[in-house]
């Protein structure tokens, strides 16, 4: 009588939860382990600083890294100001129940769930053809900006909403204008959530293939301007593993470089947000 109860009450659920958690950990370790195991054999400093040769089977990924960096730079310099502005508007200037802000919120939710290939086709039709930017880093970056905006805006907006109402009340009691309340009080306090949105957006952008193949394109040469086509890391990986016979080794090494970039970006931004949290007290 006692034994099965023990099994039912505590042992079985505990076991199940541990197994599930273990499985998640295994999946992660297997994936990362596979990429590191296969990638480190080929990855070297030489690989990072030399341009690809022979469709990527020889040489390295220097031009791909530069193109990816430029695409991300365009994407983030366009989406950050727009995202921040829209989030401030949604959180500070309108209430949740207002029809216009509801409309914006609904559109953002729909945008966030649109598959990336649709953004790719839209970017190709709008930026490449209608605006005449052609296959270029600028088109790719702008397409990505459209794609990461919903994530950026919703995370930042949540950040603003999570700030205590006391901040705003004390500020107006002290006679601060809405503008200085925003710049000196709310914005610094909401920076961590902006950074989280930034990282989520960056993570989605750097790993994007479908939205970029028809916008920033396939050219693996060193881009001379933002109007040149440039191949992103994820497209390079896709092409090497799916289209170029004998490209698997280089694909693994590139994937490892991509993961390393992501990890570095993540730790950099959490370091910055930590720094911010400490200095914020001085600025306010």
């Amino acid at each position: 009588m006692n034994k099965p109860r023990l099994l039912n009450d505590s042992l079985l659920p505990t076991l199940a939860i541990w197994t599930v958690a273990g499985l998640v950990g295994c999946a992660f370790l297997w994936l990362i382990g596979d990429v590191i195991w296969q990638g480190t054999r080929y990855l070297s400093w030489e690989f990072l600083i030399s341009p690809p040769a022979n469709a990527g089977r020889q040489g390295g990924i220097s031009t791909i890294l530069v193109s990816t960096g430029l695409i991300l730079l365009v994407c983030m310099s366009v989406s950050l100001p727009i995202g921040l502005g829209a989030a401030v508007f949604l959180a500070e200037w309108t209430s949740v129940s207002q029809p216009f802000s509801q409309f914006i919120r609904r559109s953002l939710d729909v945008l966030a769930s649109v598959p990336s290939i649709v953004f790719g086709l839209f970017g190709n039709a709008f930026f490449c053809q209608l605006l005449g930017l052609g296959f270029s880093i600028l088109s790719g970056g702008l397409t990505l900006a459209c794609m990461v905006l919903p994530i950026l805006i919703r995370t930042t907006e949540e950040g603003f909403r999570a700030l205590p109402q006391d901040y705003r009340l004390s500020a107006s009691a002290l006679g601060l204008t809405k503008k200085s309340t925003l710049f000196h009080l709310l914005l610094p306090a909401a920076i961590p959530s902006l950074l989280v949105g930034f990282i989520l957006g960056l993570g989605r952008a750097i790993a994007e293939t479908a939205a970029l193949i028809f916008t920033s394109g396939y050219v693996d040469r060193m881009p001379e301007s933002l109007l040149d086509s440039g191949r992103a890391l994820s497209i390079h990986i896709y092409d090497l593993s799916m289209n170029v016979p004998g490209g698997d080794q280089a694909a693994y090494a590139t994937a490892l470089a991509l993961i390393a970039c992501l990890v570095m970006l993540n730790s950099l931004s959490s370091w910055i947000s930590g720094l911010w949290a400490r200095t914020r007290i001085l600025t306010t």
Partner: protein
Amino acid sequence: MLNIIRYFSIILFMLATTACQESPAAHSTNTKLILTGSSTIAPLVSEIGKRFEVQHPGTRIDVQTGGSSRGIADIRQGIAHIGMASRSLKYSERDLHSTVIAHDGIGFIVHQSNPLSSLDDQAIVNIYTGSVSNWKEIGGIDAPITVVNKAEGRATLELFLKHFNLHSTQIKAHVVIGDNEQGIKVVSGNPHAIGYVSIGTAAYSASHDIPIKLLGLGAIPASLDEVLSGRFPLSRPLTLVTKSVPTGTLKMFIDFARSSDSYDLVSQYYFVPLQG
């Protein structure tokens, strides 16, 4: 905080001005050719383009991908100068001009452990229409067949349908794939699968320890030699398509791609050069 915003606007401004300044300068001195189309040809033409750029300073060859049909659509819309198509032109496309730069054969692949070494046309039709669903019915082991087919819009699929006189709605596929390497990965991971891919790519993979095997078509073995001799029935031209008869830089590039200067590159991608 204000500082950050100030820095940010400066960066934005600089970015915008560099984009505006560089564009006319970079493009007035350069001739830029844009090619789009078949993903099979894209890596090869990228390399031919790089070699052409070295010999003709001031030209840029930009190669994009997306499939043969996309290449044709892009030159019709004027987005690209040259389309890449891994098939001959259709009747509806006869107003365009196409030039063959290499040949490629399509072969059927199975897992290395499969005891069969060739299949005739009828067996393949039966497998792909679903009337044969177990390997033992055609002399293999007792196991269900996994049918791997190419995605719609791929030139390989069109050639396959035309050769076997099938319609895409008749095909009962279990797996639908895009590029060649994907097909090879699916078949090498499934001992009971059958698929069809570019012979050159398959021969390369088979010789590099990937557990796949090329099946002969009837009595003819699937090899690059047979494609070269013209005996292998399932072969296709790799072509560069232009809106009209090419002139100027377009003609120079297409002639270069056809010339003996590019044969070694064609062989590196496991296609069959025009000669030799």
